[in-house]
């Protein structure tokens, strides 16, 4: 207790800096990399990121993010942006924005997302560039979509990258998987009026590490006295709270066929009248997972490598959790460079 004076002085000095920092912030901006809408249908948009130089790889990549939360995670802050870095590494980047579903979309199914929107975006890019095949990069749920799509359309995909993507739903100890296995999903979908609220989904993720949503505030005064770290903290907060609802039919099938019956890994998953056989995936595939991912544990991701038919396939592990893998400084630097290099190497 001897240095209590210092403590108080420190506190008030911190507060003095924070007055300015907090007062200065009018808007928290995320996803600021320049881009334009090149295709849209209903609530879904395809963005093309503007670039100044010719890309190193002539085949562009389409990013398919999860329906849960927003792709802004890939461009959260200007100095730590997966997308900006990918662009600067010479990759031509598109991203699919799934939009914010409303009750009108309650019957929109995985078929509509994958065989409709995703396919239309792929066709748009093929046409726009006059090429037969594009690169596809899927994140989490969007990665599962990409796997399914690539298995059904191997002739349209040149290279496939999945990031923190669940494919094996049965054989792991993740809480989300455990709970979903016994969930009465029909009742849930019906009672939510066919639209699963983003808050409900977020709540489920939060529960996995219940103190996380509070623990992050520990030391908030240190965060706020530095303007840059305050902005980045608020950017992450903005992203976390920006959670679209999910179309009931899509959610129902995702939970029932995947979480509960593990159909994709077992080769019985059906979409639009076709059985999805992951062995039909023959293009080069890069599978990336995060070592400490508690939302999509490595055990649910790694089996991708065994289930696909590709000869050229690779597993990469990066430090961090489900989100940290994208924004952690160390992993981000290595991760994006690795992804870009992998794509450039396979651009012949």
């Amino acid at each position, binding site marked *: 207790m001897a240095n209590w004076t210092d403590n108080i002085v420190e506190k008030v000095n911190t507060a003095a800096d924070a007055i300015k920092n907090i007062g200065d912030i009018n808007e928290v901006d995320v996803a600021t990399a320049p881009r334009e809408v090149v*295709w849209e249908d209903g609530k879904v948009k395809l963005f093309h990121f503007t670039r100044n130089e010719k890309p190193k790889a002539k085949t562009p990549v389409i990013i398919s993010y999860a329906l849960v939360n927003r792709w802004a995670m890939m461009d959260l802050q200007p100095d730590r942006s997966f997308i900006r870095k990918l662009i600067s590494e010479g990759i031509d980047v598109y991203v699919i924005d799934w939009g914010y579903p409303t009750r009108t979309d309650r019957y929109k199914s995985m078929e509509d997302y994958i065989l409709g929107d995703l396919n239309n975006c792929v066709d748009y890019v093929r046409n726009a560039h006059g090429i037969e095949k594009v690169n596809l990069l899927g994140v989490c749920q969007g990665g599962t979509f990409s796997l399914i799509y690539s298995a059904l359309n191997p002739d349209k995909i040149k290279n496939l990258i999945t990031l923190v993507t669940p494919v094996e739903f049965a054989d792991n100890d993740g809480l989300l998987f455990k709970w979903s296995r016994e*969930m009465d999903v029909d009742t849930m979908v019906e009672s939510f009026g066919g639209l699963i609220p983003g808050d409900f989904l977020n709540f489920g993720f939060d529960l*996995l590490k219940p*103190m996380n949503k*509070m*623990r992050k*505030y520990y030391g908030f005064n240190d965060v706020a006295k530095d303007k840059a770290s305050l902005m980045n903290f608020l950017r992450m907060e903005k992203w*976390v709270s920006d959670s679209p609802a999910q179309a009931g039919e899509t959610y129902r099938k995702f939970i029932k066929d995947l979480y509960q019956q593990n159909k994709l890994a077992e080769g019985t998953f059906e979409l639009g009248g076709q059985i999805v056989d992951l062995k039909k995936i023959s293009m080069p595939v890069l599978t990336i997972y995060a070592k400490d991912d508690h939302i999509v544990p490595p055990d649910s991701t790694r089996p991708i490598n065994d289930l696909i038919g590709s000869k050229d396939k690779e597993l990469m592990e990066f430090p961090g959790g489900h989100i940290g893998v994208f924004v952690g400084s160390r992993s981000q630097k290595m991760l994006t460079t690795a992804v870009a290099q992998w794509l450039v190497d396979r651009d012949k």
Partner: protein
Amino acid sequence: MNWMDLNKTGDFWKAWQDSVKGFAGQSQASTDPMKEWWNQQERFWKDAMEKTTGMLGNQPDLARQWQDMQGNFMKQWMDMAQQAMTKTPSMGTEPSDMWKQFARQTETWYADAFKNKLPEQLRPHFQTYMDMYKMFTTQWENIQGMIKNGLVEPKVIWQMVNPAQYADAVGKVMGFKPMKDLDEVTRQANQFFEQLRAAALKMFPAAEEQVLEMNEAFTNWSNQQTDQFFPFMNSIKEVMKQNLEPYFHVTGDETQAEVLRSLKEMQFSYLAYLHHSAKLQKMVLDAGAQVLPSMMQEARESYNKDHDMPSFDTFFTDYMNRLENAIVETMHTEEYTVTQNQVLASGAKSKMIYDEMLENIFKDWPFMTKREADDLAKETTLLRRRMRELEARIGAMTPEVNGVSKKSAPSPQVVSSDAVINLIGKAEKGKSDDLKEIKGIGEKLENLLNEIGITSYKQLAKMDATVYAMIDDLIPAFKGRAMRDDWASQARELLKTNSLV
């Protein structure tokens, strides 16, 4: 920055002024910056009032000026305070209550300002964090005292640390709806449903009477008003009344019986929800309640050995981690999974019955119910799917239409400009119409069409669905535009008009 923030900041400064008044006697110098600051404030507001009548937030320069003023003053004041404190040795050894209070105020204000910058949905999480933090800061002296004196039995601990505070904090972390006494909550829920049923028994005739009565009263009252607004509103209301009146009687006995049945069903599923929730909450709270005593017992042992007391920060962060581990361990049990799913299912069922009840009440009313909206959503999705199939079929047919043999693997650039021109013909030599006259065609699209070789209304007039689909493939950025705006009809109209001229 908005007005609210400024107000809050203002409150803080005011509180601060009050809390430092006590120092005035100890150091004459401490009053000078205060005076100067008040004068500055006065000048600023006088100036600001002249410049703006709206919110200060609308005047970024003023807001910035104000902000700088506060920041500079605070720095100045801190220097002064530091000097004053080092000059007064008695203050350097033991924090006075006034200083403690001052530090706490600083922290509270600061936390509030920070919270206001967080997205609204996350503010409760931050508040929960602050509550838990405060619970520990206010109890820290007690906790240390108990550790030093070996008072680490759970019974003793929960006498000093309020268990309700603990339950409240954990409940918020876990998203629990507070449920202190299950018997009491059950009794209240039963009472509530009885009241609802009683109300439903007389609901329909009463509702009609009430609406008519209110109508009457409003008409009388608004007729006495001189303002134009009221007669206008009244006329709208009259129209609505005339339209709604026929429906007052359709929600008859049958609906009433169904509503009463729904209420009974809902009562039981809601009670089930309450009981499952109580069980779930107890499991989690019991698991977490072990953490503080066991941490204090460990601290006691280590204190016995070498008189080492953990720092507040270590103890607090350690508590959060260990509390989480204890809860997560419980969540991994089969019993937890089963109970959580029971909570979800019974809660969802209550909600479904409620929705069905509303559906029944409103089914004959002249507006769209949820169920009808659902039908519409279903139709829309099916139509989109059908459209997609048709697009795919057209896409597959196009090469054959043009006499181009179909390749085994679909090629993205099968549609060529020539194929389009084959179908709609070349433009007459030197003939070029202003395609921008067509609604939906701008300069960019006109240029793209010209590139294909489409320059005349005559060509547009010959287009049909097949050509539209080909145009879509050639100019994907404007996909669907040709069909949507029906270029062919528009072009035919223009040709007709032009020939008249």
